[in-house]
Every structure is written in C-alpha cells, then in structure tokens.
C-alpha cells in the first residue's frame, strides 16, 4: 500500500528591526541579562498603549511581495487570547481575518543539480508580536519556572504555506529557499540558534486504496521545530508513525481531533502533547489600541523598486550569463548575497567566469569552512583574487603555483598583514614560480634527465606511459616554474624520436 505525504509549514521569522513592534525596547538577543529590555507596553501594564513600528510593517510588506502575495489595501490587528506565563497581557496581538497579505507562492528548487523546481503556495503572511521565554528548572526538584520577557514584543512574521510539500526533504528545501530569500532581502537574520526562525509542521497522509480512492489520515501538528535538521527528522519519523497508526486503527481525518505533537531530538521521536482544553477558542477581536493600516499603490511601487535581485533570478542569471552549471550557480547563490557578489566581481574582473567559479566553490568555500570565516572576513579580497586568476589566464604561473600563493596570502592575511595584489608578484619572484618559457633551457634539462634515466626511457618505449611521470618530476625539480603540461609534451616528443 502506498501513500502521498501532505505537509504545510508555518514559519515564524523575527524581523530585523532595532526596536520591538509596539514599543522602543531593543530587540537584541540577550539571554544572559533577562528582563532588561522591557517597558510598560511589552510588560502589558495597564494604561500603556502600543504604537506600530513602521519598519516592521515595511519589512513585512517587502517579504510578502517577494513571496508573490496579494497585499491587502486595508489591514488590522486582533487580540488572540490565551494564558501562558510568557504572554504578559493575556493576549497576543496578531492578525486574524484581515492579514496584510494573502495568496502567494515560492519557487523552490527541489533538485539543485537538475534545476527542477516546485511552486509552493503561500496561504498568507501576517505580522504579530513574539512572546517571552520560559525557562524550566532543569534540576527536577524546583517548584518555579523562570520567565524572561526580553523577547516579548519582538516583531514576528508568520508565513503559512499551502499543504503543497510532499516529503521531509522537500520541506527542508523549502525552508532553505525561504531562509535564503529572507536573508537576501535583509528582513531577518534567520539565526535559528537564537530562535529568529522557528517552524511548525502540519502533516498527514493520503493513503491510496486499491479502488483508486485516497483516504486522508488525521492531521498532526508538530510544534516548535528549531532547526532544519529537526524539521526533516521529525517529519520522517511522523510519516512512518502515522502510516503505522493508520494500519493499526484505520482512523481517518475527522474521526479524531487534530493532534499536537512535540519533537524530542534526543530520542528521535515525536510525542503527544497535552491537548490544551478549549485551546482553539482564542476569542479573537479587533485590538482597540491599534488603528488599521491602509496601503497605497504608490507605497507598494516604492517597495517593489527596493527589492533587489531574488536568489532564484540570480541563479538563472549566473547560469545564462556566466555559463555556470546548475550546481555551481546554486552553490554560489545559496551561500548568500555577499558571496554571490564577491564571485560576480571576480568573474567580471578576471574575465574567466568558470575559473572564478572553481576557485570560489572549491578553494574559498573550503577555507571558509575550515577556518570558520564568513566571506566578509575572508582576507583575500576581490582585487587580489582577480590578480591571481589573471596570472593563470596569461599563463604567467600554473594553477598549482596559484594555489600555493593563495594559501600563502591567506596565511599572511589571517596574521593581520594587509594583502595587496602586488604581494602576488613578490611571492612569485621569491618562490621562483614564474613559468619558464625558455625552450632552450628546458630542452637542455630534458636532454640531461633523459640521459640519466635509461630505465625509465626503456620502460616508456616498451609502452609504459606512466614512466614519463617520474621524468616530469625530475625536470620540474630542476626548472622551477616550468609548465608541467609543456614539460610532458616536450618529454614525450623527445622520447618518441
């Protein structure tokens, strides 16, 4: 029996504002100093009044437009009422029936190597406030929980997808693409360790019947997934669990109420959470403390112009403009806007886009990873790499020599020395890496090495092509900076005489 997996994701992202959504308290991540970023508004003290942060609303518009959403000309905020210690007012200011945006989509490259995409629908995106943070006593015998309200009132954008995702891996790709878009737009840092991006997953199965019908299983919501890995693992687990449950009980959608489950990363399993009684009755009503917002076409035009290039368009442009493979374009673009711009500058500067792609995707990414550097911290800046690749293009040095110089430059840069393009010339000279074009000199050395190695010569002549390798090595040792391709060619000619 087979089934189709149906998943929709709710993603919460913290917006990159300096101050909270309704008050002037800082949004800085500050777990070591609890309750130092609060005021009467975010503490929910009587008599305080919230005022909307303009930047939070603009960042929300920017995101929704990039997700191809319809922007509502009129929007308002509502109170969602529930009791929890991290929610000081006893309600969360959110959006209920008139969210500011609706009905968009995100194109997700589900297979970056092939470049195949899937269009994932976006039901809505709305703007709300975050709650504080509860900390539970880990010792097990404490009686109180601790509450830190630094985060309470941080602007949060909730992005709700259609149930268009068909596997755990697709969900991960959707989240990666969404995170990339959000960081390209600069609307969120999407730092998952700091809780800037959190995810809930709604999942069920459509079990295929022999008569061609599909039976939907009850929907389960997995709450509070705080890493892409956990999204993937919890969904894989939950899909299996639901199918087994269905085989055991035969319960279908509607026969049991929607279940909320948590993810226990240590055990690698989802677990049923206590159903909150009456939890669905949030008694939404319009927040009388906030006034509605209307958006004009002019404002939308202004924001549209500020959007910049989306990651998907950039990949396409790199493939078409620089003739990069799907893979290379995806690797470069998916590292973020800063690396993609670095690449592009080098590609244009050295005039060899493919060579630039090789260096960025291999040497630079490897060193960044090993040394834990961002591209912004990488000591070899664009002009230096352009100069280095230029030396390869003009055959002034070999690729091997360039790699050697690259490592030297990196080491010196990390020691704090300023790295200028002129340093390359100094290194080439001091290490004797300049390619030798003096055919006469090469000829003489080759003749000498051939005379000294009668066995290798005999081996070669009896058909052992590999024997030439040892001879190349000896020639290269004598003539530093010789082009190995050229040496091989000359040696083979000589031996074939």
């Amino acid at each position, binding site marked *: 029996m087979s089934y189709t997996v149906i998943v929709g994701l709710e993603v919460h992202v913290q917006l990159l*504002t*300096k*101050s909270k959504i309704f*008050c*002037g*308290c*800082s949004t800085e991540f500050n777990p070591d*100093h*609890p*309750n*130092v*970023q*609060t*005021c*009467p508004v975010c*503490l929910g*003290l009587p008599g305080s009044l919230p*005022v*909307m*942060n*303009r*930047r*939070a*609303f603009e960042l929300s518009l920017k995101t929704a437009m990039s997700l191809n959403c319809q922007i509502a000309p009129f929007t*308002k905020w509502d109170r969602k*009422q529930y*009791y929890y*210690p991290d929610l000081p007012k006893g309600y969360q200011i959110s959006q209920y029936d*008139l969210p500011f945006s609706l009905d968009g989509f995100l194109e997700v490259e589900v297979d970056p190597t092939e470049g195949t995409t899937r269009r994932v629908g976006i039901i809505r995106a709305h703007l709300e406030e975050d709650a504080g943070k*509860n*900390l*539970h*006593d880990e010792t097990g015998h*404490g*009686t*109180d*929980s*601790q*509450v*830190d*309200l630094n985060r309470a009132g941080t602007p949060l954008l909730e992005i709700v997808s259609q149930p268009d995702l068909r596997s755990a891996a697709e969900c991960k790709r959707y989240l990666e693409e969404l995170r990339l878009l959000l960081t390209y737009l600069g609307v969120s840092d999407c730092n998952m360790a700091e809780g800037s991006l959190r995810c809930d997953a709604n999942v069920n199965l459509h079990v295929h019947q022999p008569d061609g019908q599909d039976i939907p299983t009850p929907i389960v919501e997995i709450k509070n997934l705080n890493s892409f890995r956990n999204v993937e693992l919890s969904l894989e687990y939950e899909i299996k669990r639901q199918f087994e449950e269905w085989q055991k009980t035969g319960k279908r959608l509607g026969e049991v109420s929607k279940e909320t489950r*948590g993810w*226990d990363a240590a055990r690698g399993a989802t*677990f049923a*959470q*206590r159903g909150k*009684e*009456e939890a669905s*009755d949030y*008694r939404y009503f*319009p927040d*009388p403390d*906030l*006034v*509605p*917002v*209307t958006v004009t076409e002019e404002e939308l035009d202004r924001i549209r112009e500020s959007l910049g290039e989306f990651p998907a368009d950039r990949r396409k442009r790199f493939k078409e403009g620089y003739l990069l493979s799907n893979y290379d374009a995806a690797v470069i673009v998916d590292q973020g806007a800063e690396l993609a711009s670095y690449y592009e500058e080098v590609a244009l500067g050295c005039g060899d886009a493919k060579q630039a792609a090789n260096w960025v995707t291999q040497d630079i990414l490897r060193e960044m990873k090993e040394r834990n550097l961002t591209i912004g911290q990488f000591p070899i800046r664009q002009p230096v790499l352009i100069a280095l690749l230029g030396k390869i293009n003009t055959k002034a040095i070999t690729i091997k020599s360039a790699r050697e110089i690259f490592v030297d430059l990196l080491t010196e840069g990390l020691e704090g020395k300023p790295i200028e393009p002129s340093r390359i010339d100094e290194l080439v000279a001091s290490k004797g890496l300049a390619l030798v074009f003096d055919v006469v000199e090469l000829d003489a050395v080759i003749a000498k090495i051939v005379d000294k190695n009668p066995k290798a010569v005999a081996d070669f002549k009896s058909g052992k092509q590999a024997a030439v390798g040892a001879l190349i090595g000896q020639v290269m040792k004598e003539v530093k900076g010789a082009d190995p391709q050229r040496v091989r060619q000359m040696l083979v000619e000589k031996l074939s005489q």
Partner: protein
Amino acid sequence: MATQLTRADVQKVALLGRLKLSDAELEAYTQSLGNIIGYVERLNEVNTDDVEPMVHAVELSNVFRADEVRPSLPRADALANAPKSERGFFLVPQILDER
C-alpha cells in the same frame, strides 16, 4: 431574533477567562449578561444594508512610530510588581512539562 444566553455559555466564558464562579454567581451572570446582550441586540432592528463595517471607533489609520530604540525600564522596576522574582527572572508556578 433574540439569542438566549445559557448557563453553559457563561460557564464556558468563565473557564476561558479563568474565573471561578459560584452557582449563585453563575445564575446572576446568566441573567445580567443576558440582559446586556438583549439590549445590544436591539441594534439588529436597524437596517445596515448600506453601512460599511466599522473596525475601529476612532477614524484614524496608519499611526506609526520610527524604529528607534528608547531606554527600557530598569530591571528592578520591571520586576517590582511580580509576586516572586529571582536572579532577574519573573518566577511563576512551575509550568508542567508537556511531555
């Protein structure tokens, strides 16, 4: 068309509001809340076919503040009203582990 408010309705609202009502109170509120709803329902007699729905009593829109950080309360002030606090945290009765 009058809506009849039942005791069960009041009980549910009380539960959602975390209010513990005695039987006598439940009875009294069913009566008095029923009267209020009955009073407001007189509005149903008005023909509102050509009236735009109103979302706010104040005819204002687009009230924003600039994204600027302002000083927060000193922590001691923020915690001043808390029944219990410790090392900078509000303390609340232990939240049951949801597992």
